[in-house]
């Protein structure tokens, strides 16, 4: 919001500081998962031990937001409410099947993070509503998630694409039981490549040509736009590749976890 004000896009008459509202600074963990209050900063969430153990992809996404000074001040809720497509978190939160809880003071409604940003700087939030918290479900057994932030030119720029891949294996063996492929940053909102993801089911995720097929299919499920970070054809091409890398990385980490466990 401060950025939009500096650019002259927003010129509000009043600013209300909601930082100290106790409900918004919650960071709770329960068997159901994690509840992150909207005013929790990136740095707080990043440093929470539960994140590094349970949600590796989220930890990666958090670490790659801006720099430590920004993360110490910027809040999770503020980042999501901004509605900028290049943000890291929505991509990985959606892959983790997270939900956003919106409150108008008396009533609450729940929206999947996947659908929270509708267009550039345009979110589900209606006037009079506040983003209260994000709920991240507990990671199902034998599942893992990988997040990739792809900056095409320099190390510190807005990503041309963000990709998150969540996979779950069957109770026994190495067959894939469920998968989610989410692409962000390339266009005006998040893209859920569920048709492509279906092709991962009932496979062992070890045939690279099959994985490339999945990447190819996913290219058709995204709607990139031309901008300074890449043309539509470049972003499409790169996403196909990043999805394959994310699947492989998630799978290999998952197999290591599962083999240790078993």
């Amino acid at each position, binding site marked *: 919001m401060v950025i939009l004000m500096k650019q002259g896009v927003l010129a509000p008459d009043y600013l209300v500081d909601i930082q100290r509202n106790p409900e918004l600074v919650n960071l709770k963990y329960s068997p159901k998962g994690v509840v992150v209050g909207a005013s929790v900063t990136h740095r707080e969430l990043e440093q929470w031990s539960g994140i590094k153990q349970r949600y590796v992809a989220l930890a990666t996404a958090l670490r790659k937001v801006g720099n430590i000074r920004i993360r110490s001040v910027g809040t999770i809720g503020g980042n999501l409410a901004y509605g900028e497509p290049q943000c890291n978190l929505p991509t990985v939160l959606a892959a983790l099947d997270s939900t956003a809880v919106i409150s108008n003071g008396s009533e609450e409604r729940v929206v999947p993070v996947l659908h929270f940003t509708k267009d550039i700087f345009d979110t589900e939030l209606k006037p009079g509503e506040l983003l209260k918290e994000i709920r991240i479900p507990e990671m199902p057994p034998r599942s893992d998630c990988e997040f990739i932030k792809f900056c*095409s030119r320099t190390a510190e*720029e807005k990503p041309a694409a963000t990709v998150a891949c969540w996979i779950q294996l069957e109770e026994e063996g190495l067959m894939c039981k469920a998968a989610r492929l989410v692409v962000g940053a390339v266009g005006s909102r998040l893209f859920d490549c569920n048709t492509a993801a279906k092709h991962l089911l009932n496979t062992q995720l070890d045939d690279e040509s099959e994985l490339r097929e999945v990447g190819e299919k996913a290219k058709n499920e995204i709607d990139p736009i031309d901008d*300074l970070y890449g043309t539509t054809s*470049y972003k499409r*091409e*790169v996403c196909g590749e*990043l999805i394959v890398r994310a699947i492989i990385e998630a799978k290999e980490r998952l197999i290591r976890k599962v083999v240790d466990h078993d």
Partner: protein
Amino acid sequence: MFTEIPRLEGVGKVTGSLRYTSDLEVTGMVHGKILRSPHPHAKIVSIDKSEASSLPGVLAVITAADTNRNKFGFMQEIADKQILCENKVRFVGDEVAAVAATTIEIAEEALNCIKVDYEVLPPVLDVNEAQKPDAPRMHDKGNVALSGQFGRGSILEGMREADDFLEADYETQRQAHVCFEPRCCIAEWDATGNLIMTTTTQTPHTLRQEISRMLDLPISKVRVVYPPMGGGFGNRLVTSMLEPIAALLALRCGRPVKITNTREEEFATARTRYPFKVHVKSGYKSDGTITALDITVVSDNGAYNDKGPAVMGATRLILNHYSVPCINVNWKLVYTNQQPCTGFRGFGLPQMQFALESHLDELAEKLHKDPIEIRMKNSAEEADRKCIKTVVDASGFMKKRGKEGRSSDIILRGIGIATSVSSGSGTRIYGHNSSGAMVKISEDGTVTLITAAVDLGTGAETVLAQIVAETLGIPLEFVHVAGRDTNITSFDLGALGSRTTFVHGWAAKAAAEDAKKGVLAAASKLLDCDTKELEIHRGIISSRTNDGKRTSFEKAARYSTTRLNTAILGKGMYVDDKAVSMSLASGDMGETTRIIFREGEFAAAVGHCAAVAEVEVDKSTGRITVPRYWAAVDCGRVLNPLGARGQTIGSIAQGIGYALFEEITLRDGQVINPTFVDYKIASMNDMPEINVAFIEHDDPRGPYGGVGLAELSIEPVAAAVANAICDATGIRFRRLPISPERVLFALKGSSGDQSLK
């Protein structure tokens, strides 16, 4: 004395206590803001400033009607810019009106209240379009603003000697200087009508002349004061309209006026590097010796003339760099309705060397020879060959080039080399390359160097203090550097052409030697001996012949000042009597102004370098990184290894950005990436591991054997990287910056633009 000495101003800089122009406030100061054209090309039909003028807090609103309507040009013969546009605006950002108000916010609001009626005209946005016969004219002459030619030998003969030919086109982009301190000035008139201009400038004395011309003031009424500056890189060589506008506002409202560019104004209006389109045709023998180089350069001049001719003049150094007997360069600068350009580290050499050093590699490939052999055959001086050999050995080039097994499934690896040359002493094309200095020795033995040198963060003051300390034989702590005021300092062209260490070093050395005489005269009286016996070492003055006779520098200074009633003041000069100005061709030139560079050496001394870059290219995303880089630099004797290394690394950082991701992007005449979010420079994480080798030797042309190196190392970076990418991928990219997208699609074989990959 010539060891690794940290910057004199270092502590002030890192603690934030150093005051830049942007930090300064003056009693009664008010704020100025400039109304800029939103159109690339339009007639100004009318301007209504009545509403703005009546806003509370607004003290002055000016338009062209409030100026003398003089046209300005860095060379007055090619003046084409009014301080405030009168009839036409010629680029998005062109200055139309200005406001002085008690706060910046009120000034901004006032800008919004100025009503300008524009009649939009079709813009010219491309140098090819601009040259078409039916193209809209931007000025009262044709769109080819300036042109010239230089070279040696006969191209016809050179080409006749050739066994074969190679032709290719290369293209470079607009690069932003990205000075951390935006342009800023404070204009104040004193009670007797003198103007004090406190500003960010690399060229205070010529700025004084420029302001005097623009405002019809005698030079004696203009004083330029220049605090420490947060970067220059060539951006602050010529006035931007901030200075005269602030002066006019201050005159009108009777208060000092401060104007600071916003970061957007810096990116969108403060002028960029000249982009070059270079056509190279080489004739060569089958052994790789080039017999002729025929080069054509077309550059986007932007809306107004600036340092273009000097930028082209700098490329004359290729005559020093290559042994090719016949070289011809035809250049032209073409007006477009886009942000004007100006000098930038290396001037025209980063552009030219990208073209020529890429071309040498293409030649090597065609002849199945290695790129080292081609360079050894065509380099002009032993110093160049030594740089090449040093960097080839340091990097292991021959072992790595074209070797199997370097690349993996995902990453392609390559290595490339490029060389360059730069002025190390300032150029001669302005007809003046001299300066003077004074050394004052106070009664307590402290020494003040009064120099016209401008330190833009280059470490100039430190190196000059070292030279003075070395000459006087005293510890560095005794020396302070002063100046920063055209009332005090000797006339000088400023910080450009890597001249400061050389010109100001010579002047400071001469001034110190002169002052030394006064110290020794006093010491000889104190010690009752001949001055010829005495020497000064680490602040102790002693007799060579009589061990017992010794005193201190401080004592001698005190004795002179207080007992002999003789203040110690030394003066010294450096005069380059070979400087001959570039000039306009005489006679009927028609629509285009022809510029002539006189024959003779371009610079009193040059620096040489060679560089090797290793790149890694991700096959499936096209992403390019430069993990390692080697530079061999010959700048004579290195007077401050810390400073020299710093200048080299900084140059390489800008070179990497130039090669891979920096570009001021224009769409319909509008700069669409005028912020740090969208214009990226290399950060720590983008920098390669850099190895710098200085090939040290005493260069007798320079003070204590050293010459300047401020620009040298930016010049070969882009070609070294492009050559490495070609080694890695087999694909030749001839246009900067080389983006991952172009690399990816070229690797997949589906790139449309084949000619300017």
